[in-house]
């Protein structure tokens, strides 16, 4: 496969290096590029010990932007796990006030550790996160062993047998997680091609040139369903079907890329993804804002009520009626 890529392209060089570094499966994680596409990897991670994911083995895709490592890789879970929705992009960027900050010196290994680190953290209502109960997650963990990837086969054979808790690695994962923020994008926003294909297939609409506005409305629709776990289970199974169809065009699109080195299509699509991942989820933020407003305004009303009552009291009028209204 090496010969078909432009080895002068830094992303290609870097990805070959990373593939070599990660060549051997570990007890906790494993990731390698697909045979026919250096820019799409499949990963397998073990559910962290001491969590409801313990015993589970989870599989997914990592999509590399054409200008990796300048832009972050995109991670998509394929195995239902109860923490992240499947077939949706999880984008990695740094947390805090400056979200647009993936660091080129991070690597796929960093991303894998971040995934492991994030699994047991609360979903907090971010898009694409699932808030399943511990028992549901444990059930999915058991079931995950049966998952078979069309490309990689049976996934429970992909990792080395666990011989210890790998405390050190879990510790490292937690540390990485402190630096990396996870936000989840919608699959439709992935590659322009991918998105357009999936849209054609799933909904029949196909405005290629204006995916941004469309997807923004889709996100809104999505949040309402994903906030209710029971619902999102449904959407998950739906979207699973949708992507099994979209995987192929995505593959063929990016496999034509490295030979040229600067194929413009994947670049655009990755930047689209990046632009999305760059921000913290605007909707969840505004949701929070709404809650704050609610609390704040009720506090103000209460205060005004008390003041009015006080005034009435000072004027010596009976406040029984008012009390009834207020309390």
């Amino acid at each position, binding site marked *: 496969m090496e010969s078909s890529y432009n080895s002068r392209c830094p992303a290609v060089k870097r990805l070959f*290096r990373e593939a070599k*570094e990660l060549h051997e499966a570990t007890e906790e994680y494993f990731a390698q590029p697909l045979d026919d596409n250096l820019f799409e990897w499949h990963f397998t991670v073990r559910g962290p010990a001491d969590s409801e994911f313990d015993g589970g083995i989870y599989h997914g895709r990592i999509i590399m932007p054409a*200008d990796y490592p300048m832009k972050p890789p995109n991670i998509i879970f394929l195995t239902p796990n109860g923490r992240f929705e499947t077939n949706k992009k999880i984008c990695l960027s740094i947390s805090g*006030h*400056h979200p647009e*900050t993936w660091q*080129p*010196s991070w690597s796929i290994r960093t991303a894998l550790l971040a995934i492991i680190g994030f699994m047991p953290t609360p979903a907090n209502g971010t898009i694409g996160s699932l808030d399943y109960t511990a028992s549901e997650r444990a059930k999915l963990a058991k079931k995950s062993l049966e998952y078979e990837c069309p490309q990689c086969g049976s996934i429970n054979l992909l990792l080395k047998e666990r011989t210890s808790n790998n405390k050190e690695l879990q510790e490292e994962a937690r540390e990485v997680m402190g630096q990396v923020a996870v936000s989840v994008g919608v699959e439709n926003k992935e590659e322009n091609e991918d998105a357009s294909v999936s849209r054609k297939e799933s*909904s029949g609409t196909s405005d290629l040139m204006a995916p941004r506005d469309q997807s923004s409305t889709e996100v809104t629709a999505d949040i309402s369903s994903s906030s209710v776990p029971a619902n999102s289970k449904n959407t998950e199974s739906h979207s699973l079907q949708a992507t099994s169809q979209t995987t192929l065009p995505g593959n063929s699109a990016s496999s034509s890329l490295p030979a040229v080195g600067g194929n413009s299509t994947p670049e655009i699509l990755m930047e689209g993804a990046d632009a999305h991942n760059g921000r913290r989820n*605007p909707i969840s933020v505004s949701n929070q804002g709404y809650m704050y407003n609610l609390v704040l305004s009720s506090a103000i009303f209460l205060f005004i009520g008390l003041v009015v009552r006080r005034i009435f009291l000072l004027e010596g009028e009976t406040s029984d009626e008012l009390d009834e209204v207020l309390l």
Partner: protein
Amino acid sequence: MENHQSEDTHIKPCEYDPNVNQDELIMAQEKQIAEEIKANTSMIGSLQGLGSLAKEYSNDPVYSSKVRTLLPKFSNVRRTRPDGNCFLRGFIFAYLEYCIHHRDELTRFKKYLEGSKEELFEMGFPKFTTEDFHDMFMEVVNDLEGSGSVGRVEAVCNDAGTSDYLVVYLRLLISAHLQKNAEFFSFFIEGGRTVEEFCKQEVEPMYRECDHLHIVALTAAIGVGVRVMYLDRGEGAAVVSHDFPEDKEPIIHLLYRPGHYDILYKA
């Protein structure tokens, strides 16, 4: 239905539609601007006479009088792509160009680069990736040592992959220098952040603009003098200049306009 909505927002972008996520629209616009910049500006532009700068400000009395004061001192300008990496790209180009005309400086820089890798490892930078960026920089320097020409430097700095790798490595060097001298630099960092946080947020990620602190750290780390000419709306007709570090004869001249750096050539 969806189609209608997206068409509407295209026709009337100024009207507020509560159904459309405004953040997404802003992001789309920012992305579009970035794409346009990328399509229209090369990372390091060709050599232009300073007259082009004068022409740019022919309708602006403040700027044009200031540009006039630059004319006797500088002959040419090279514009850089305003993508947040302009200072670093400008620095790399100007420095490498200087180096191919001053071979002893190239030798000194190479030696510094060789040593810098171990220093970064010691400071805990991830070995695997740091090495990747370092190797690319060494490759470029070795190549210039052999067949150095301005054309070659131009090619290297305009090759997206290579150019970005060089920028990343300088960012790591800046970060290392700031963290090594954290006690001193902590006094200059705003927003109650630690030096380490500042580096993770403002230095190491790509496309984050360089500020005074970055320049101080970079010039001190590599030991190269840079003079920045500040072209802004400040008082007086003179263009204020600042040397980094203050006691070093500058070999690189950069033109600063709010938010952007270009390369200047002495007359």
